[in-house]
C-alpha cells in the first residue's frame, strides 16, 4: 500500500468503449451517421502494483464500463490494455481464460452476481475449478480455508446465497474473486448496496486482505469517504473521460479540475455549524451520444474560455502538483484557487433548512 512507486501492473492506453445505437429505417434512409454511446472515451491510466486506485464519478460516468473493460468483460472499441507489460487487449479463447486468473472482479450487485442455484462452495470455487484441475474434496477444502479470511464461517459450504445477508453475499463475491489469487481485483461499488456499519466491516476486510496478499485494487465508487479511507490514488471520470488523477490526500484537499472541485464541494459535511461551500455548478450532464469536441465540462464550467469549447483538453501534468495529471486548459490558474473561496454559477443553497 505504501510503496506507490512500484512498477505498473495494469496500463490502459486511450481505451474507449462505444456502444452502437440501433439504426432505425429513417436514419438509414436519411443517411444519418451511425450513433453510439461513448461510455468510456480515451482513458489512459495505470494501476500500480500493490496500490488501490479509486475511480470516482457520478452515475453514468463510465466507471463500471471501465472496470468491465479492465476485466476483459467488454471488448474495447479502441485502445490497448497492458498487464505486466504484456498486451492483453486482443487475447481470446483459452489464452484469455487463462489470463483471467490475474484479474478478478467483485460485482456491484451482491444478489445478482451469485447464481441462486449453486451452493456456497460451488460459487466461491468457480474460478478455481475453471483454472485448476482439482478434485472436489480439494476444492471444498480450499473454499473452507478461504471463507474465514473474508469473515464468513467455514461450515456454510452447502448453503445457498439467499441464506446470507447483503454483507454476507458481498463477502462471498469477494471470496470468489480471491480464490484464484489474482494480482488485481476490480471492486465495482463493493459497499454501495450495504448499510453503513457493514460497509465499514467489508472495507476493513478489503484493506486487511490487501496487506496480507499484496493485492492491487481498482476501487470503483461514488463515495468520497470510501476513497479517503481505502485508496492510495484517485482517478476522476466525467462523462466517460478521465479528468484528474493523483494521490488521494492531495486531490481531496486541493482538487485542480473545476469538476473535481464541484464534486468534492457537494460532499455533505456532518457539522451543522460549518457553512457549506458556495461552489455550485448548474446544468445537466451532457449526453454520451456522439459528444461534441471540446471539454465535456465546458457547458457547466464557471471558468470556461473559448478554447475549452473547441479543443479537447489533454491529460497533462501540472507544475505545482506532483504526481498529478489533469485534463484542463486552465489547470494552472484554476488549481491554485482554494476551494473555500470559489463562487459557482449556480444558485447557492440555503445554509440551514428553513424553519417552519
Amino acid at each position, binding site marked *: 500500500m505504501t510503496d506507490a512507486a512500484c512498477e505498473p501492473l495494469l496500463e490502459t492506453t486511450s481505451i474507449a468503449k462505444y456502444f452502437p445505437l440501433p439504426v432505425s429505417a429513417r436514419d438509414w434512409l436519411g443517411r444519418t451517421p451511425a450513433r453510439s454511446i461513448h461510455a468510456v472515451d480515451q482513458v489512459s491510466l495505470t494501476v500500480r502494483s500493490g496500490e488501490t486506485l479509486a475511480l470516482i464519478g457520478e452515475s453514468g460516468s463510465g466507471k463500471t464500463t471501465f472496470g468491465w473493460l479492465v476485466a476483459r468483460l467488454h471488448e474495447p472499441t479502441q485502445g490497448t490494455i497492458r498487464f505486466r507489460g504484456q498486451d492483453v487487449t486482443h487475447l481470446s479463447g483459452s489464452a484469455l*481464460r487463462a489470463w483471467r486468473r490475474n*484479474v478478478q*472482479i467483485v460485482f456491484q450487485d451482491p444478489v445478482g452476481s451469485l447464481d*441462486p442455484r449453486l451452493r456456497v462452495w460451488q460459487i466461491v470455487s468457480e474460478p478455481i475449478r475453471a483454472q485448476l484441475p482439482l478434485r472436489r474434496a480439494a476444492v471444498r477444502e480450499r473454499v473452507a480455508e478461504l471463507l474465514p479470511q473474508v469473515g464468513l464461517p467455514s461450515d456454510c459450504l*452447502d448453503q445457498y446465497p439467499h*441464506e446470507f445477508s447483503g*454483507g454476507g453475499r458481498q463477502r462471498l463475491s469477494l471470496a470468489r474473486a480471491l480464490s484464484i489469487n489474482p494480482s488485481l481485483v476490480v471492486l465495482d461499488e463493493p459497499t454501495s448496496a450495504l448499510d453503513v456499519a457493514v460497509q465499514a466491516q467489508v472495507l476493513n476486510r478489503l*484493506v486487511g486482505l490487501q496487506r496480507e496478499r499484496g493485492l492491487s485494487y481498482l476501487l470503483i465508487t461514488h463515495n468520497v469517504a470510501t476513497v479517503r479511507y481505502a485508496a492510495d490514488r484517485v482517478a476522476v471520470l466525467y462523462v466517460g473521460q478521465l479528468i484528474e488523477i493523483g494521490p488521494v490526500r492531495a486531490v481531496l484537499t486541493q482538487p485542480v479540475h473545476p469538476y473535481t472541485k464541484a464534486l468534492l464541494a457537494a460532499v455533505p459535511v456532518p457539522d451543522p455549524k460549518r457553512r457549506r461551500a458556495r461552489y455550485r455548478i448548474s446544468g445537466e450532464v451532457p449526453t454520451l451520444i456522439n459528444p461534441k469536441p471540446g471539454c465535456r465540462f465546458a457547458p457547466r464550467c464557471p471558468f470556461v474560455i473559448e478554447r475549452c469549447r473547441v479543443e479537447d483538453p489533454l491529460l497533462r501534468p501540472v507544475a505545482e502538483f506532483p504526481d498529478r495529471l489533469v485534463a484542463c486548459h486552465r489547470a494552472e490558474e484554476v488549481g491554485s484557487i482554494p476551494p473555500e473561496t470559489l463562487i459557482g454559477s449556480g444558485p447557492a443553497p440555503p445554509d440551514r433548512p428553513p424553519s417552519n
Partner: protein
Amino acid sequence: MEPHPPSSDRPGVPGGTRSGRMGSVARGVGRGAATAFRSLRTNSLSFAGFVLVVIFSVAAVVIWADPAVLPYPALAIFTGPLSQGPTWLHPFGTDELGRDIFSNVLSALPTDLGIGVSIAGASLLFGGGLGILAGYYDRPRSLSAVASMTILRLTDLFLAFPSLILALAITVALGRGVLPIVLAVFLTWWPYYVRLVRGEVLAVKNQPYIAAARAAGVTERRIVLRHVLRNILEPVIVYFTLDIGTVIVTFSTVAFVTGGVPYPTSPPVEWGAMIAFYADRVNSLPWTVIFPGLAIFVTVLAFSLLGDGLRDLLDPRSRRITAQAGAALPPPTGAELPTAEAGSGPHAGVAP
C-alpha cells in the same frame, strides 16, 4: 496447485469446524431428498397429483410389460353380458359386443402416457435446444446470429398456423396409424418450446452471475450447461409437466377427428379413438364414452397438479422456506457476525 496446511493449523479456523464441515456433507445429500418430499407434501393438491402420476406410471409400465394383468384381454369381444352398465365384474361396463371398457381404458394407459411423454419430451429436447441456440448465441454480425434468426423465423412460421389444423393436415397427409399422429403433433409442438426456452435464456444470460462466471474463466459451453440450463430449468420443467396433459388431449383430439387409430379392429387402444368410436352411443351406452373421457381428464389433472407442485420444489429459495416452516430451523449462517473482524489489526472498528 499449491500445498495446503490442514485447516486446523490456520489462525482463525478453530479445529472443531473441520469435523462439523465434513458432517454437513453427508447431511446435505440426505437433506435434499427429504426436504423435497416434505415440500411436496405441504401442498396436498400437488401431492395428490404426484401420487396419481406415480400410480399411472407404474400401472402403465406393468400393463405394457404384461398385458395379462388386465381383467379381460383388450379388444376381446363377448367377455360378458352385452351393453351392460358398470358392475363389479365390469366396473366401466361393456359395449354392444361385450368388450370390457375397463380393460380397454387400462390398456390405453401405456399408449397415451407414452405418447404424451414422448411428444412433449421430443419437443422439449428439439425446441429447447434450438431455443438455447437462438437465445444465447446472438452476438450481432456473427454466423450464430444468422442461425438464431433463421430458427426464430422458422418458429414463427409454424406458430402462425393454428396448431390443431396443422396437425390434422399433416396426419391426413401421412396416413393412418399412431406414428403419423405422433409425428404430426410433434411438428406443431416444438415451436412453443423454442419461444419458451429462448425467453428464459434471454432473461438469465444478462444476469451478473453469467458475467461473473465469464470473468472466472469458465468456458461458454460450461456457462450454458452450468448456469443457464440450471436457471431456466424450473419454468421449463413446470411447463413440460403441464404440457404432457395437453399433448394427450391434443393427440386424442386428432385421433378422434381423423380416425387415425383403428379402434377396435386392432391395437393399440387409445382414449381419443375409443371416444370417437363410441360417440354415437353417448345416449344409449353413456359409460362407453364417459370412462375414456374421465381417463383423459384425470391424467391431465394429475400432471397439472404435479407441475404446480414442482414449481415450488425446484426453487431452492421457496424450498428452504417451506422446509423451515415445516421442520426445525437450520443452524444460523453467522454471515452477519463480524467475528473475523474483531481485533484484526489497527483497522478494526474504524469507520471510513
